[in-house]
């Protein structure tokens, strides 16, 4: 039985079960931790889509603009994320190339695709396989943060390589755009309420 159909609500902050009989959809205040307790996350799907679209739009400049600009005696080179991956691949560190590719390309793309799938199914009326979809949601929330790796690498390189005439590394505008992609997709994942999937899930014990 669902808490909601019993007139109860789970507080997502402290996990106590609050009595919400007779208040409709209005928020109640959790008596233990003081947080506002809603039946489901407020405007979950609208917020998820909004953050997701913002992340997808920013993903374009994040990949097209250079994240790093290296100036040496031999000239200046501007690297995009893919350029950085190619550099590692060709300079004898294929394992690092694979790592950067995974966290900067595979994880963000999969995460955005997965969240769009979840939000699409949660918005549908019936025929939702909540078992499989909720497992996807759990993985998505866990791995998203690792995409910040490349932003940290660029920041550290830019901070450290300052040999005036010999070599300098500067961050490019792509780094900020990529960081914003990570932030928006993390916000999208946390706005999504997986309970919406189960609300649409066909219950055998539905009475």
């Amino acid at each position, binding site marked *: *039985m*669902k*808490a*909601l159909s019993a007139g*109860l*609500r*789970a507080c997502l*902050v*402290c*996990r*106590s*079960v*609050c*009595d*919400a009989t007779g208040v409709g959809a209005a928020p*109640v205040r959790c*008596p*233990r*931790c*003081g947080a506002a307790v809603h039946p489901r996350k407020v405007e979950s799907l609208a917020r998820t889509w909004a953050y997701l679209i913002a992340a997808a739009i920013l993903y374009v400049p994040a990949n097209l603009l250079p994240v790093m600009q290296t100036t040496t005696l031999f000239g200046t080179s501007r690297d995009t994320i893919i350029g950085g991956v190619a550099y*590692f691949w060709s*300079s004898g*560190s294929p394992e*690092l190339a694979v790592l*950067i590719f995974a966290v900067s390309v595979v994880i963000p793309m999969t995460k955005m695709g997965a969240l769009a799938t979840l939000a699409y199914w949660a918005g549908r009326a019936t025929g939702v396989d*909540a*078992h499989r979809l*909720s497992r996807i949601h*759990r993985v998505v929330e866990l791995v998203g*943060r*690792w995409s*910040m*790796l*490349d*932003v*940290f*690498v660029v*920041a*550290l*390189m*830019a*901070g*450290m*390589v*300052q*040999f005036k005439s*010999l*070599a300098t590394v500067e*961050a*490019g505008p792509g*780094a*900020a755009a990529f*960081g914003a992609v990570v*932030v928006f997709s*993390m916000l999208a994942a946390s706005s999504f309420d*997986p*309970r919406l*999937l*189960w*609300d649409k899930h066909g219950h055998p014990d539905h009475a």
Partner: protein
Amino acid sequence: MTTVAEATLAACPECDELHIRRPLRAGQRAQCRQCGATLYREPRRRSDHMLAVVTAALVVFALANTFPILVLQARGVTNEATLLGSVAALWTEGQPLAAALVFVTAWLFPLFDLLALFLILLAVRMDRRPSFFAPLLRTLQALRPWGMIEVLMLGVLVSLIKLSRMADVVPGVALWAFIALTALLAVILSYDLRVLWRSEPRPGGTP
């Protein structure tokens, strides 16, 4: 009116299924029988053990930010870089957004996490519930996903390899401090903050 049914009931945060609470032994966790999400857990470590770990982490955090992470040498020129130094370099290079993002996720939020947890555990240890207890614990839970020291650690290692091609790299004191901090944070993050809501001051502790 609202009442807490904490002692007897638990609602799954991911699918809203209601469960009867059962006491657990240390290190055990209760799983939702419908979707498999973790309902609640009984930490392996006591809160005063955690206070010791958090204190150690604060000391290591100070070390990690005082000493250079890496020392770079190229043709007689030496460069030392700290985390905050890198952030400042990003800022002056005209990348304030990237600088702010790194500052917040790699420095401000992790520091806030440690300081807030220190105060909260101290209050639990002294059997008190000061007025800041609930709001501080709520803020701590909300900000926790945005602290990314472990991602920064991986970023430091990647830049180390990348930089060793350009110059002589000497690991600084802060590198070892960051490794220790990552290990301590792994212990801290595995401690479920929600048990702190459950603990009530012993009768007679405070009025």
